[in-house]
């Protein structure tokens, strides 16, 4: 795992991106360490801020030459509302790179990138790496509405195989990404699927990919208090290599997990067979 740095980052770029905001941050030392799937934890305000917890965002792009990283984010609540107010020249405290990134195939593969909304953010850099390694990629990008899609143009710059879905049909195929996905997997003879988006989508994509005998890696989005592995708020039930299920931290052991190891249906419960469940009975 790459050693994270904590730095004061200057905002050097800011632009709207459909329903989202894109922020470019000059964060010395960080970009060179970033792999696709890493995230950055951004502090909201300074020492007098009422919002203590950092917000996590996938790193969209990292440019080691310019010492910049960028993120694409939705105004979802109080913290992101504050971030959306920042202007070029302001600075924010960031910790990055964090988390376990997507595993790179290391050999030429046929990969399908599936993403919902801003979930596509880490996918373009990943796709470029796969192509650079001699592989090929296809994209299935979905969102609720056309303006909630992100990066269709970036996908199209990488490959011709880009399928778009929207829940309301305002762009591309009406429906979920899992609609066209089986056909795409078959068409490109996919070896591996990379997915990022809401939990329900990741679960469904994992099923479809498994049915097609493709490997599947999913980037999850769990509420995180610390982002660095010390608080245990971000856990998911995951099956270990030893077959034992444990609550593992999505901030350090994830956010990128083998989708087939995550017990999607059991998230938010204490499965009876999870390690240490027995000890919970007492109190």
């Amino acid at each position, binding site marked *: 795992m790459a050693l994270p740095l*904590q730095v004061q980052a200057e905002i050097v770029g800011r632009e709207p991106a459909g329903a989202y905001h894109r922020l470019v941050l000059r964060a010395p030392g960080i970009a060179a360490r970033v792999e696709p799937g890493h995230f950055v934890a951004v502090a909201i305000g300074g020492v007098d801020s009422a919002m203590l917890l950092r917000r996590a965002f996938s790193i969209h792009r990292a440019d080691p030459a310019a010492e910049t990283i960028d993120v694409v984010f939705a105004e979802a609540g109080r913290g992101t509302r504050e971030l959306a107010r920042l202007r070029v020249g302001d600075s924010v405290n960031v910790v990055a790179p964090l988390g376990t990134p997507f595993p790179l195939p290391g050999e030429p593969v046929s990969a399908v990138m599936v993403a919902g909304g801003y979930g596509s953010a880490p996918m373009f850099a990943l796709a470029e790496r796969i192509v650079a390694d001699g592989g090929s990629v296809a994209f299935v990008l979905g969102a609720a509405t056309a303006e909630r899609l992100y990066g269709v143009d970036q996908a199209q710059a990488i490959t011709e195989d880009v399928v778009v879905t929207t829940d309301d049909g305002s762009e591309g195929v009406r429906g979920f990404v899992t609609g066209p996905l089986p056909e795409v997997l078959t068409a490109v003879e996919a070896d591996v699927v990379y997915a990022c988006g809401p939990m329900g989508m990741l679960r469904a994509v994992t099923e479809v990919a498994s049915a097609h005998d493709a490997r599947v890696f999913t980037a999850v989005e769990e509420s995180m208090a610390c982002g660095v592995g010390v*608080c245990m708020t971000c856990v998911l039930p995951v099956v270990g290599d030893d077959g034992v299920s444990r609550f593992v931290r999505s901030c350090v052991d994830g956010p990128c997990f083998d989708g087939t190891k995550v017990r999607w249906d059991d998230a938010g419960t204490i499965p009876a067979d999870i390690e240490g469940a027995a000890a919970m009975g007492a109190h």
Partner: protein
Amino acid sequence: MLPGGGIDLATRIGSTLLPNPVTTASGCAGYGKELAKFFEPAAIGAVVTKTIMPYPRSGRATPRMAETPSGMLNSIGLQGPGIDAFVERDLPWLAARGGRTIVSIAGGHVDDFVALAERLKGAPGVVGIEANISCPNVANRGQVFACNPATSYDVIRAVRDVADPQVPVLAKLSPDVTSIVDIARACVEAGADGLSMINTLLGMAIDPDTMKPVLAGITGGLSGPAVRPVAVRCVYQVHAAMLDGQMAQVPIVGMGGIRTGLDALEFILAGAAAVSVGTVIFNDPSSPVRILDELRAALIARGFGSLEAAIGYAHR
């Protein structure tokens, strides 16, 4: 950081002498390893580990946290690997790295505490045991031990009796009581070498969208700067009771929302001999060393010759 340090920051808890008073709060620093990416564990006074129980524990279901104004709620439910894995895997790592470890322990029965203290005998790098008595007492309908002087006494007495005599035992107190002085006194009478306070306040949040409690565990522990005034008051009250002769004088480890060196100073002036940084680590993973530097500078700026001279100064 000031050249040469210039001030004696050492602080004593029972037979342990810590080089400086800044520690991590239990549950906010794991077992030390993760934060080593941000600072050397040996640079601070001690690492107080996440509370460890006799057996592996899954912890509660998610969601386990909610952000609140200047604070947060957590309901982790003491997830952990159990004492054996901890002693074999986690403790040696910290010791090898030169870290001083205060091990936080808890159980549902007095016997659990005893077994844990036994198991820690001779374990590497352990400079203290913090008995987290703010956990439910199975024998008493799940009421937490720290809510009652008698049950608090029983746990601390049993731990003190069995633990390595060279290792100080701290009692970690809950603020959710009518009189924290009564609980503190019971713990000191039971032989506590120090008192850690405060643990989180019981709180909850309801999601306005789902209209149900945010936390899967319904209630959770409130921490962070929001609770600092309550924490300072607890430390001040207990230190005042010690000065009054209402109980023997033992060191207090103060915590609750410490964000800056001046916050740490506030606890020391109130009567704490050491401090723990908890929730603020989530905001600023390198905060323990920053706070230590700021505290050192603040003590020097105020003309103190040593940390000791500042302890309880607000009572004078």
